[in-house]
């Protein structure tokens, strides 16, 4: 086993384990913390691919912005207590069975339709450094980039309007 494979296995175990713990923990704040661990390990996967830009953006956006939003909301609603009632037993069993079935079916589908995996050859061409990504983003994907900014602005205005207190 090569070093890279061992790193991949450890990172995957952390990712899947913390994702499971996010769902099974009763306290929402603990769930948020486990979700941060999950996101950091996914950033580790990106680093393993040498996709530095995405790793940094992932840490900033997910572990920074989105998790702060989650934690703020949890604390705003004062939910940091473990009083949630479970769903009925039959629904929980149905969810578990659906999980297993979905795993099996999707894995079989992807096994059948996987691309021809030859030896993966690198041409040595630089395709994922920040320089190249910036050029691609601002040349080919200029219009979607601007639309993304419009989307973020709309989301910001919508959030402010939605969370404003209504006048009686």
């Amino acid at each position, binding site marked *: 086993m090569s070093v890279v494979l061992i790193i991949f296995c450890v990172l995957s175990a952390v990712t899947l384990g913390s994702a499971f713990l*996010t769902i099974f923990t009763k306290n929402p704040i603990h769930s948020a913390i486990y979700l941060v661990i999950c*996101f950091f390990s*996914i950033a580790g996967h990106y680093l393993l691919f040498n996709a530095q830009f995405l790793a940094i953006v992932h840490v900033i956006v997910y572990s920074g912005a*989105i998790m702060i939003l989650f934690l703020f909301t949890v604390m705003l609603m004062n939910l940091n207590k473990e009083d949630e009632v479970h*769903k009925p037993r039959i629904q929980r069993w149905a969810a578990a069975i659906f999980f297993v079935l979905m795993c099996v079916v999707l894995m079989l589908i992807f096994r059948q339709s996987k691309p021809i995996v030859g030896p993966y050859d*690198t041409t040595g061409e630089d395709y994922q450094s920040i320089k190249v990504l910036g050029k691609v983003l601002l040349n080919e*994907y200029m219009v979607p980039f601007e639309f*993304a900014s419009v989307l973020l602005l709309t989301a910001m205005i*919508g959030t402010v309007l939605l969370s404003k207190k209504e006048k009686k």
Partner: protein
Amino acid sequence: MDNVLNQIGIENYIFLSVILFSIGVFGVLYRRNAIIVFMSIEIMLNAVNLLFVAFSTYHQDASGQVFVFFSMAVAAAEVAVGLAILVSIFRNLGSIDIDNLKNLKG
């Protein structure tokens, strides 16, 4: 670090993403707390992003990573609006249990 996929294999990444996506679906079905449901949706989005990056490396094409960048922007907007909706639901109903949201049922 030149050929990570030679040592790991694209199948392993496919399996990891499939399991992560299924965990997200499981969380949506299993929990009643709406915030945890949102977290599960984030997990699903991340599974898909991971597979995008894996295949971007596989094809040595930057477009996959640009697409992940856009999907992160959409995810950020979605979470902001969704959490604002949850806060306003909490103000009106006093809980965010999704089984209590039956106002449209008649």
